[in-house]
């Protein structure tokens, strides 16, 4: 009986075959833009500017990728990759550290002004950097932080998603642990390092994945504050590789750069899939 019902619910036989066909079609359609970019990064410019371009990879993989990595258009793509890496890791690590600390203070202490701070942090959830770009730009310029890593990183740390996530998690840590620590005469910071931080490991890792991608994929902010090509990040730098006016874009190099720009986040997402999905679901809750 159970088996028959199973057969009615999950597809078998010809239905199963059709289900796979639909799924593969969906994957192909979704993948097509990436595939095309990859093909374009392995052929020569004349093959692209005389449409239609081929749909299978050519033999100029090394030429195009080394041209992109070591000379680029305005600046070598390797430089932009380093900048992106510093920015993404800086945002992820910085936000995790300040959020762990402030969530610990909010959950484990009763101090004057605690509620005010809590609501202050809460408010920062509401306003993405895109909305306050002009005054934030002025602040960063005032500190002389244009074209610097700190200018790229700090304004994007000022948001409270991670703090909330940690607050929610800390509230689920059993009270007995804090009680025991207090009875043993352990200082709050000792409790933090020995109990709270190790218990938060999975949350930290999941959040790191989400924040790394958030940082890596930033576009508007680096576009505003990195006027020096040496400080461009790869995601914003691609657009700068297009010539102004009527010149023809160097498509193979631009497409090689696009592929390079997606490799690190794809590795993170696919490689740490379980953590990524967990982080995604948690941070949106």
């Amino acid at each position, binding site marked *: 009986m159970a088996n028959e019902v199973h057969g009615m*619910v999950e597809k078998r036989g010809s239905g199963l075959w059709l289900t796979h066909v639909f799924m593969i079609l969906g994957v192909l359609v979704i993948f097509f833009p990436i595939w095309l970019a990859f093909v374009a990064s392995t052929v020569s410019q004349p093959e692209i500017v005389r*449409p239609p371009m081929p749909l299978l990879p050519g033999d100029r993989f090394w030429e195009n990728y080394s041209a992109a990595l070591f000379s680029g258009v305005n600046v070598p793509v390797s430089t932009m990759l380093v900048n992106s890496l510093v920015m993404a890791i800086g945002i992820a690590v910085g936000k995790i550290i300040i959020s762990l600390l402030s969530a610990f203070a909010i959950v484990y202490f009763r101090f004057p002004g605690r509620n005010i701070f809590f609501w202050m942090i809460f408010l920062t959830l509401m306003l993405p950097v895109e909305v306050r770009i002009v005054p934030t730009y002025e602040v960063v310029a005032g500190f002389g932080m244009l074209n610097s890593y700190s200018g790229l990183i700090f304004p994007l740390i*000022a948001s*409270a998603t991670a703090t909330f996530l940690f607050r929610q998690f800390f509230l689920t840590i059993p009270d007995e642990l804090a*009680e025991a620590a207090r009875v043993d005469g352990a200082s*709050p910071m000792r409790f933090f390092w020995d109990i709270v931080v190790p218990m938060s490991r999975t949350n930290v890792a999941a959040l790191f994945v989400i924040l790394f991608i958030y940082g890596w994929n930033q576009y508007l902010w680096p576009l505003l504050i990195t006027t020096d090509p040496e400080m461009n990040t790869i995601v914003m730098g691609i657009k700068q590789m297009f010539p102004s006016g009527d010149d023809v874009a160097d498509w193979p190099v631009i497409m090689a750069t696009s592929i390079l720009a997606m490799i690190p986040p794809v590795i993170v997402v696919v490689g740490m899939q379980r953590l990524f999905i967990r982080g*995604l679901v948690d941070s949106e809750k």
Partner: protein
Amino acid sequence: MEKRVTFRGWLLPALLIAPQVLISAVFFFYPAGQAIWQSLFIPDPFGLSSQFVGLGNFEFLLGDKFYRTSFVTTAVFSILVTLCSMIPALFLAVIADRLIKGSGVYRTLLIWPYAVAPAVAGVLWLFMFNTRVGVVSWYLGNLGYDWNHVLNGGEAMGLVVVASAWGRISYNFLFFFAALQAVPRSVIEAAAIDGARFWKRFWTIVLPLLSPTTFFLLVVNVVYSFFETFGVIHTITAGGPQQSTTILVYKVFSDGFVGQDLGSSSAQSVILLIVVGLLTIIQFKFIEKRVHY
């Protein structure tokens, strides 16, 4: 919810919370306050002084034809992006859910586009539809359709919508798939025993059970298309042709940085702030409700 067991003292927690409060104050509250303050002034052309105009900037904006058009453009854009990313995602998730084996492989392949930055997605789609070298536009031309998103506002809108929705399909797929896996098998099997066919089960049982996820994704995708699609628009159309793809966030940028009209740009920021506020309230109201489920 509060902890019963807490530590004493105020200096330590103050130090612990200081970095976040400091960064929020400098890079969030001060700029946000500035935006509100500047929205009440019109700077003179040399930027030396500014004149207090009260709500003048807002009055001007609401009377401005371009600004009102930008509101409509944003509404159309976000509705289309939300639909174009949620419907295919639901479809794929329903199919993947029917497979006993192999859904993990498809899931791995389908989450790729989520990792692709909106700006990079913009470049990929621009490449396919480029009027000179684009593969898709070339084939369309062979079929007798002359694709030109550089001149045609409707085509430009279509292109930025598809490029923005593309990466979101992965995101929505993950949430729909997780929600579908959580639907109790016993309910489905009971309906199957009663003779309900697949689509009947889908409409009468599965879809209603998915409604919390669907509503959540609606809000999140609208927020996404409001604020995170700047990269797509900047790389593909730069707001054109004739402002046909100038969404609100793009206008804050183009008026503030390109047009140097700080008063108007700040007033637009404040209006957006109100919009985000409303969306956030909707989101939280809904989450409150979901907790009680």
